[in-house]
C-alpha cells in the first residue's frame, strides 16, 4: 500500500499536468464550439470564419488594452484586457451584423443550400483573416498584465512539503469561471427568455415558427449577437492564457469543429461536452504515466519506461480518431445534433 504522501504527490502531479491544463483548454474549446453550434442551429451552416472572427475580437480587445495601459488604467491583479473586453465584444458584434447584412442575408433571401453558406463563410474567413493581419500584423502579441499566478508551483511545494508542485494561473481560473458563467447564461437565455424560445422554435422548424409570428430578422440578429459575444470572449481568454497570433486562431478552427461535431452539432450541451472530450482525450492518451505510476506502485513494480500510450505527435490524430468513431457509430454526435 503506497503511503499517503505518495498518493498525494501522484494526485497533485496529475492535477497539475493533466487536469488543470485539460479543463482550461476544454473550456476554451467549449466556448468556441458554443458559438459555432449556435450559428449552426439557427442559421443552418458551419461558419468557417469562426476562428478568424475570434482573432478579430481579440485584436480589438488588444488594441483597447494597449490604449488603457498607456493611459495608466489597470485592474490590479486582474488583466486589463477584461476592461477592454466589452469593446472587443461590441466590435465583433458589429462586424458579424455587418457581414450578415451584406453577405449571408442575400443567400437567405435566395433560400440557398447550406453548402453555399459554407462557401460564403470561407470567403468571409479569408477577408477577416487579411483584415486582422493588415491591422495588427501576423506576429505574436502579448497583452497580459496583472498577477500571473493564483498558486505558483514552487510556493505550493514549500507550503505543502510535497515533491510535486501545483500551479494555477490567473488566466486559467478566469477561463474556467467565465466559461461557467457564460454557459449558465446561454442555457438560461435559451430556456427562459422569449428571444431564446424564439431562437429554439426557429431552429426546430422555420416555417412553423414564422407562422406563429416570430420575426426571423430578430432571431438572426440575436443569434449573431450571442455568437459574436461568445466568440470574442473565447478569443480573448485563449489569447490571455497563451498568446495572440492570427495563424494559431485560424488553426483552432479544427479542434473547435471537432468539439462541436463530437458533442452533436447544433446542441449547446454537446458543444460543452465535446470541448472537454477533445481536450482530455488528447491529454490522457499522450501523457506518460511513469512518475504517476512510480508514486503509487510498490517498490518491486517501479519502472523506468515512460508508460506513454502514444507519443505527443499523435495528439491531433487522437481527436480525429474520436471524430471518425463518433461519426461512424453515432453520426449525430453524443447529444443527437441536427444534420441537415
Amino acid at each position: 500500500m503506497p503511503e499517503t504522501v505518495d498518493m498525494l504527490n501522484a494526485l497533485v502531479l496529475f492535477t497539475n499536468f493533466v487536469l488543470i491544463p485539460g479543463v482550461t483548454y476544454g473550456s476554451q474549446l467549449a466556448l468556441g464550439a458554443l458559438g459555432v453550434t449556435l450559428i449552426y442551429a439557427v442559421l443552418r451552416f458551419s461558419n468557417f470564419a469562426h476562428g478568424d472572427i475570434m482573432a478579430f475580437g481579440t485584436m480589438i480587445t488588444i488594441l483597447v488594452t494597449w490604449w488603457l495601459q498607456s493611459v495608466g488604467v489597470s485592474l490590479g491583479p486582474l488583466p486589463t484586457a477584461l476592461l477592454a473586453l466589452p469593446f472587443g465584444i461590441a466590435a465583433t458584434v458589429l462586424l458579424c451584423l455587418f457581414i450578415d447584412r451584406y453577405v449571408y442575408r442575400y443567400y437567405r433571401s435566395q433560400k440557398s443550400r447550406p453548402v453555399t453558406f459554407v462557401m460564403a463563410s470561407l470567403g468571409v474567413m479569408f477577408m477577416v483573416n487579411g483584415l486582422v493581419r493588415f491591422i495588427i500584423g501576423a506576429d505574436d502579441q502579448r497583452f497580459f498584465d496583472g498577477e500571473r499566478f493564483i498558486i505558483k508551483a514552487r510556493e505550493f511545494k514549500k507550503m505543502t512539503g510535497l515533491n510535486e508542485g501545483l500551479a494555477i494561473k490567473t488566466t486559467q481560473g478566469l477561463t474556467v469561471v467565465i466559461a461557467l458563467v457564460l454557459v449558465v447564461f446561454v442555457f438560461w437565455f435559451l430556456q427562459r427568455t422569449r428571444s431564446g424560445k424564439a431562437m429554439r422554435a426557429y431552429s426546430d422548424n422555420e416555417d412553423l415558427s414564422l407562422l406563429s409570428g416570430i420575426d426571423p430578422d430578430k432571431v438572426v440578429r440575436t443569434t449573431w449577437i450571442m455568437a459574436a459575444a461568445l466568440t470574442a470572449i473565447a478569443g480573448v481568454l485563449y489569447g490571455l492564457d497563451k498568446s495572440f497570433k492570427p495563424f494559431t486562431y485560424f488553426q483552432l478552427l479544427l479542434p473547435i469543429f471537432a468539439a462541436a461535431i463530437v458533442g452533436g452539432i447544433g446542441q449547446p450541451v454537446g458543444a460543452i461536452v465535446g470541448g472537454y472530450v477533445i481536450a482530455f482525450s488528447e491529454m490522457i492518451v499522450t501523457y506518460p504515466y511513469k512518475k504517476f505510476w512510480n508514486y503509487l506502485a510498490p517498490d518491486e513494480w517501479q519502472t523506468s519506461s515512460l508508460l506513454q500510450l502514444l507519443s505527443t505527435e499523435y495528439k491531433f490524430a487522437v481527436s480525429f480518431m474520436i471524430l471518425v468513431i463518433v461519426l461512424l457509430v453515432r453520426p449525430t454526435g453524443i447529444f443527437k445534433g441536427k444534420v441537415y
Partner: protein
Amino acid sequence: MKKTLIAAALLATASAQTANAEDIKIGVFLGFTGAIESLVADMGPAAQLAIDEVSKSGALLDGSTVTWVRGDTTCTDSAAATASAERLITSDKVHAIVGGDCSGVTTAALQNVAMPNGTVMVSPSATSPALSTIEDNGLFFRTAPSDARQGVIVSDILNEKGIKEIALTYTNNDYGKGLAESIEKNYTESGGTVTINAAHEDGKGDYSSEVAALAAAGGEVLVVAGYIDQGGKAIIQASLDTGAFDTFYLPDGMVGDSLPEALGTDLDGSYGAAPGTDSEGAGIFAEMATAGGFKAGPFTAESYDAAALIMLAMQAAGSSESSKLKEKLMDVANAPGEKILPGELAKGLKILADGGEVDYVGASAVELIGAGESAGNYRQIAIEGGKLVTTGFR
C-alpha cells in the same frame, strides 16, 4: 597596307582584352518567399553587397564585371527550387551560385541541377549534417557550420555546467530532427542521459500535453530545438507556467532578444549558443550592412562570405569556370596567406593577381574544414536579469 596591319593589330589586342575581361554572373539562390523570407530579406542584400563591391573595384580577372541574378528556393518546395536553379544555370548561365538556404531544397538543387551541370554552390545557411557526406563532385561548400558541430557544442556546454540528465524536444522538420539527433548522439556518448526526445509541431493551439510528457520524463534541463517565434517559445512558456522545468538550453533557432522580452526574468539562468563571432570582421560587416541599408541579422555574414569566397577562388584559379574555381575555394578560405576582412575584397584580389596567397577571414571568421564547410564559431549566451548576454565564444 601598313595602316591595315596596324588596324588589325589593334583589333587583335582589343579582342584579346575583351576575351579576358568578361561579364561574370553569380546566382543568388535563396528563399525570397516562404518560411524564412524575413531572414532572406537581409541575406540576399548581404551576398549582393560582396558582388557589387568586387564589380566596382574592377580587380577581378582583368577588370571583369560581376552581376548577380536572383533565384527563389522557397525554402521548402524542392520542385520549385530545382526549377529555379535550372533557370539560373541553363538560361541565365551563372558561373557559380550563392545558396541555397534551407537544407532540403539545397540538397535537391545540388543533386538535380548543380552536379549534372558542374556548377559550384556555396550555401550560407544549410546546416543539415547530411550535407557533410553528400556526393557532390567537390562542388558544394557552405559557410555555415553543420548541426553535427552544434551537437558537440551543446553537449560540451551541458557537461561544463555539470548537467547529467536532459529532456529534449525538437520542431518536427529536417532542421529540428537533424539537430536533435546530433545533440542526443554527442551528449549520450559523453555520458549524459536523454530522458525523452520528443517532437513538437509548430503553430498549434495548445502545448500542455507536450509539456506534460516532457515533465513526466524529467531532467535537469530542457533542450528546445525549435523556433523562437513558434512552438519553441510556447513550450518554454508552458513549462515555466506548470513548473515543469526552470532551466532551458537554447540552440541557434531559439537565440534572440524577443524571447527574454516575452518571458521576462522567469527565464533567468537559461543558456545556449548560436553561430556568431566577436571578430573584427563581424564589427566591420555590421557597419557595412547599416550603410548598405540592411540588418546584419542571422546568416547575413555567412551570405557575404559565400559570395566573397566564390570570387576570390575565381581570381586564384584565373578563371570564372566552376570546374576551376572549386579547386581553389578551400585555399583562399584558409591559411596560409594575408588575412582579408570584409570591405577588403579588392585588396585580396590584387594579392592573388600578383601571385600571393590570402586567408579570407571575412565577416564570419570563416575557416573551411572537412568537405568544405565552416568549422563554426559559436557565441555562447545566457539569460540574466531578463536580458540576453554574451558569455563567451567557442
